[in-house]
């Protein structure tokens, strides 16, 4: 309901004032087109990441080592689907349709996080993904609970509550294996060796190569820089690795008394960029699987639509 027609600069000033008061922007508020587009990209691709993110672990559901682990993994993968749906729901409040976002993913025009283009080669990877990959996601997502766009922040609050279960089940899985045989301990170490660097890449390239961070921070969409988040993750992970009894595969990793933080090496950014360009280890496989699942589900969607129409006709 528009009761007044305000001038554009007045709208912009009002938008800025809302941000300055640290209040949330809500769906029917006026917002700059750049703000809206940045949010659509961020939220939609976050949603795609959750949906594609079901694949690496879903791979292991039928081969879980016990009924307990199977129930946990099923619940976790179902949560990832749920996270994707909360996020699509938030993206739709910005005036895009769900189908359109799905098409953009399937066409490869919108991306998802490159972390899901790495293969899961052993069951230990289920634990490592929970501990490191979901741990890194928590570092990114906790500040997003206070992001300036209301529906995004609310979706993140729900996601973060559930993500804590994901990280803990992963860590517990690894801790159980570390109390097992030498072979199991070796599996954990091998898995951590493969996932440590990709987990660091999840925070994106270094700040000096991210010229648009300032705009996103001014809009309250982004709360910390990529490097700040990465440092936080490393500081959190080192004592966790020690308690677990695994070695993080970085010779440069050392406590820096002066900074009060751990120093650490840089991941291979060329490998990261290859993944973004579509040339990571599993990009083609992940996309092919997603397309196939979408096409294979077409008859279910059509049947549900036909049934709904039938019931509606019978009532009227």
């Amino acid at each position, binding site marked *: *309901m*528009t*009761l*007044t027609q305000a001038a554009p600069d007045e709208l912009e000033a*009002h938008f800025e004032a809302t941000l300055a008061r640290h209040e949330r922007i809500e769906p029917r*508020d006026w917002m700059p087109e750049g703000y*809206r*587009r940045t949010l*659509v*990209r*961020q939220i*939609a691709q*976050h949603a795609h*990441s*959750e949906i594609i*993110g079901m694949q690496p672990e879903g791979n292991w559901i039928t081969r879980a080592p016990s009924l307990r682990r199977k129930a946990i993994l099923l619940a976790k993968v179902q*949560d990832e689907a*749920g*996270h994707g*749906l909360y996020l699509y*729901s938030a993206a*739709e409040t910005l005036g*895009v*349709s*769900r*189908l*359109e*976002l*799905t098409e*953009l993913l399937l066409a490869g*025009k919108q*991306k*998802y*996080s*490159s*972390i899901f283009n790495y293969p899961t080669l052993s069951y230990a990877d289920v634990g490592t993904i929970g501990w490191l990959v979901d741990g*890194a996601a928590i570092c*990114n*997502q906790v500040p*997003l609970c206070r992001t300036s766009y209301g*529906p995004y922040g*609310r979706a993140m609050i729900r996601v973060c509550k*559930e993500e804590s279960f994901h990280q803990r089940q992963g860590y517990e899985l690894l801790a159980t294996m570390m109390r097992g045989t030498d072979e199991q301990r070796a599996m954990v170490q091998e898995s951590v060796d493969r996932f440590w660097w990709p987990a660091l*890449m*999840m925070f*994106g*390239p270094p700040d000096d*190569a*991210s010229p*648009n961070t300032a705009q996103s921070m001014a809009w309250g969409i*982004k709360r*910390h820089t*990529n490097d700040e*988040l990465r440092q936080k993750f490393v500081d959190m992970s080192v004592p966790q690795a020690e308690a677990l009894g695994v070695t993080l595969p970085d010779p440069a990793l050392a406590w820096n008394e002066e900074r009060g933080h751990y120093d650490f090496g840089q991941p291979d*950014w060329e490998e990261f*960029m290859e993944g*973004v*360009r579509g040339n990571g280890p599993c990009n083609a496989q992940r996309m092919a699987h997603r397309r196939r699942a979408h096409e294979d589900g077409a008859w279910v969607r059509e049947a*549900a639509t036909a049934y709904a129409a039938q*019931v509606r006709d019978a009532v009227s």
Partner: protein
Amino acid sequence: MTDRTSGRELSAEGGHGAVPLQGVPTGQGVQAPEPEWPLYEVFVRGKRGLNHVHVGSLHAADDRMALLHARDVYTRRNEGVSIWVVRADAITASSPDEKDPMFAPSGDKVYRHPTFYDIPDNVPHM
């Protein structure tokens, strides 16, 4: 760091890992070829004695499917004892802006609040 092939910048705030925030289409807001199921808004009563609260939305072919999907998406951990689903196109909404003239009539009526009235300190239970 920008991807030299497309000039994209990547932000950690993709949430579950960095995603490019430039050079990515954001959709036209147009309907795709396949007709989309209607959008439903979902409201959940957390426990007895509380109001239903809006939690998000979902798409479903009909009301019953909307209810079942709402259960699966929004109440996987005992978040609710009752769910309402309402077709989004059936909702009439005001602007959320607090400065909207819509809410002006209540802005200047301080006498509607109990704190408007001075009561001597020695009067109990008021």
